[in-house]
C-alpha cells in the first residue's frame, strides 16, 4: 500500500502525557476538613454529599423496590471522568467493596423481596474516595429511612515513605504503597469492611487498623449531626402528647 502522504501519521503507540507530569508533593493537613450534608436530592429516596479535603462524594439511594429473591443491596461506585488525573480504579471492584461494607450495617431482613439501589459518585478524588463513599452511602441510606443497625463510617490510612502512618491520606500519598481502608460501625464496635495492601511487618498492621478506627470514631459525630439536621428538615415533628 502506498504511504499516505496527506496525513501526518502519528506514532503507532501513544501514551497519556499525564504519565510524565510530576506529582505535586502536597501534604494533607490533619485532620482534613469535613463537610457533610444529607437529603439534598429531591428525586432519590435518600441522598448525601460528603466532602473531605478535596475529595467530594455524592450518593443517592433508591428503594426499596420490588425484586425477586432475597433482599439485595445493589451498589455502584463510580469516579467522574474529571475526578482525577491518570487512570481511575475499576468501578466493579469498588462497588463490591462498598456493598460488602454496607451489608453488615443495613437490616436487610426487614426488606424481603426488595432491592435497595445505592449509587455513589466521586466528583473529585484527592485520596480516600472509597471510605468517603461508604460514609456517604450510609448517610444516604439513613436519610432514605432504611432500617440500619448503625452508620458505616469509612476511614483510610497510608504509610508514608518514612514509615509514619498518615490518616486520611491524599491521593499522592495513597500511591506510596501501603494503605489501609476500613469501615466501622462505631456504636457496635464492629468492622464491616477491611482492605489492606502493601507490606506490613510485625504488628504495624494492627497499629494501622487501630489508628484508622480512631479516625472513624472522629468522623462519626459529624455524620450524626448532619443526619439529625436533615431529619429535622425533612420530617415534621410528631404532634402527639
Amino acid at each position: 500500500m502506498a504511504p499516505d502522504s496527506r496525513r501526518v501519521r502519528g506514532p503507532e503507540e501513544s501514551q497519556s502525557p499525564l504519565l510524565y507530569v510530576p506529582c505535586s508533593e502536597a501534604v494533607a493537613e490533619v485532620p482534613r476538613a469535613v463537610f457533610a450534608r444529607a437529603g439534598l436530592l429531591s428525586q432519590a429516596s435518600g441522598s448525601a454529599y460528603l466532602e473531605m479535603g478535596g475529595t467530594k462524594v455524592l450518593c443517592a439511594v433508591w428503594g426499596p423496590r420490588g425484586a425477586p429473591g432475597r433482599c439485595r443491596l445493589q451498589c455502584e461506585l463510580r469516579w467522574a471522568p474529571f475526578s482525577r488525573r491518570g487512570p481511575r480504579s475499576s468501578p466493579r471492584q469498588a462497588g463490591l467493596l462498598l456493598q460488602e461494607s454496607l451489608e453488615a450495617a443495613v437490616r436487610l431482613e426487614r426488606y424481603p423481596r426488595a432491592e435497595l439501589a445505592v449509587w455513589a459518585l466521586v466528583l473529585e478524588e484527592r485520596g480516600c474516595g472509597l471510605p468517603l463513599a461508604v460514609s456517604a452511602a450510609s448517610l444516604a441510606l439513613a436519610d432514605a429511612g432504611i432500617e440500619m443497625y448503625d452508620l458505616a463510617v469509612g476511614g483510610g490510612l497510608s504509610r508514608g515513605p518514612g514509615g509514619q502512618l498518615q490518616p486520611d491520606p491524599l491521593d499522592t500519598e495513597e500511591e506510596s504503597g501501603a494503605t489501609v481502608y476500613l469501615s466501622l460501625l462505631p456504636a457496635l464496635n464492629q468492622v464491616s469492611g477491611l482492605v489492606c495492601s502493601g507490606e506490613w511487618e510485625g504488628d504495624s498492621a494492627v497499629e494501622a487498623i487501630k489508628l484508622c478506627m480512631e479516625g472513624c470514631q472522629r468522623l462519626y459525630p459529624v455524620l450524626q449531626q448532619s443526619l439529625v439536621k436533615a431529619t429535622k428538615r425533612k420530617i415534621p415533628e410528631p404532634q402527639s402528647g
Partner: protein
Amino acid sequence: MTAMETGMVSNRYSVSRPFTSGRESCSGMASVQLSEAEKVYILHGIQDDLRVDGRGCEDYRCIEVETDVVSNTTGSARVKIGHTDVLVGVKAEMGIPKLGSPGEGYVEFFVDCSANATPEFEGRGGEELGTEIANVLYKIFDNKSSLNLKSLCIQPREHCWVLYIDVLLLECGGNLFDTISIAVKAALFNARIPKVRVLEDEEGAKDFELSDDPYDCMRLNVTNVPCIVTLSRIGHRHVVDATLQEEACSLASVLVSVTSKGVLTCMRKLGRGSLDPESIFEMIECRHKILRQFLGAIPAFWVQGKGATRGETSTQVPNFTHSSLFKDKYMHLHTQPYSAVCMSLSRESTAI
C-alpha cells in the same frame, strides 16, 4: 467481653439471617445449602475446637502438591486441599515493559472457574468469581518484595518477560484462596524461564537468542511470594481452611496474605457480616502459627536453592511422599501431626 457474634444476630445460635443478600460469602459461589440443625452442629463443634472432619480450628487439611504437570508451560503446579483442586500454569512470554516501570517485567493473572468445578460456572457463570480472585491475586503481588520483577527485564523499555499466571479451578471444596495461592507459589517455584542473550549488530539492530538447553534457565526466587490464609469467623472462633459446609456457616472471613517472614502483603474482609476489631487482631496474630505449618509442609517453596533442577524436588524434600491419585509421579504431603512438624520446624524457620 467476648467477641460479638459476626453479623449481629440477637439469637445466640442463629447463624444465618433469614433474608440477606443473594451473594453468599465471596468464595462460596459454589456453595452448599445447609439446614439450621447442620449449622448448629458445626458451630457447636467449632466452639469446642473440634471440626466435622476431626481437625482443630487452626489445622489445615492434607495439602497435596504436584509440580511440573503441564509440559507446554514455563512452570505448572496442581494443588489439592481436601476437595479443592487447582491447576496453575505459568507461561513466560516476551512483552514490552510497562511505562511506569521500564526496568521491570510484569505479571498477569487469569482465573478460569471452569464448569468442571460446578455446573454453575458454565458459560460465563464463573467469570465474576474469577475476576474477583484475580483482583485479590493482583493485590497480594502489588508490592516490591513479593517477586523480583527486575529479574524479568531483558532490556529496559524494550523487552521483558511477562508472566501469565493462569489458574484453572478443577474442583471447589472450600478455601479457594489459600489453595490458589499455594498453587501459584508452587508454579512460580517450578517455572524455568529460558535465558536470553541479546546480540547487537553494527547497525544497532538487536537479536535475541534463547537458550535451548532446558537446564540453562532462570529460576525465580519465590521466598517472598506470599501465601493466603483465609480465616473464617464461625461463632466466637475462627477456623482456617474452611470446607464448603463451614463457609456456609460463616458470615465473615478475613483473608490475610503473608510471606515466609510473617509480613502481611494484603488483608481483606470477605462476606457480608461484620467483625469485632479484637477478633481481627487475633486473626492477624494467628498467622504466625499457620505460617509454621506451611513452613513445615513445603520448605522447598520457601527456601530457595533446594531442589533446583528438574526432578529433584521430590527427593530433596522429606515431607513429600508419593501418591498415585492422578499420576505416578504425584507428590503427596501430609502436614499432620501438626505439633511434630511445628516442633521440628521452629529451627528451620529461624534459619530463614
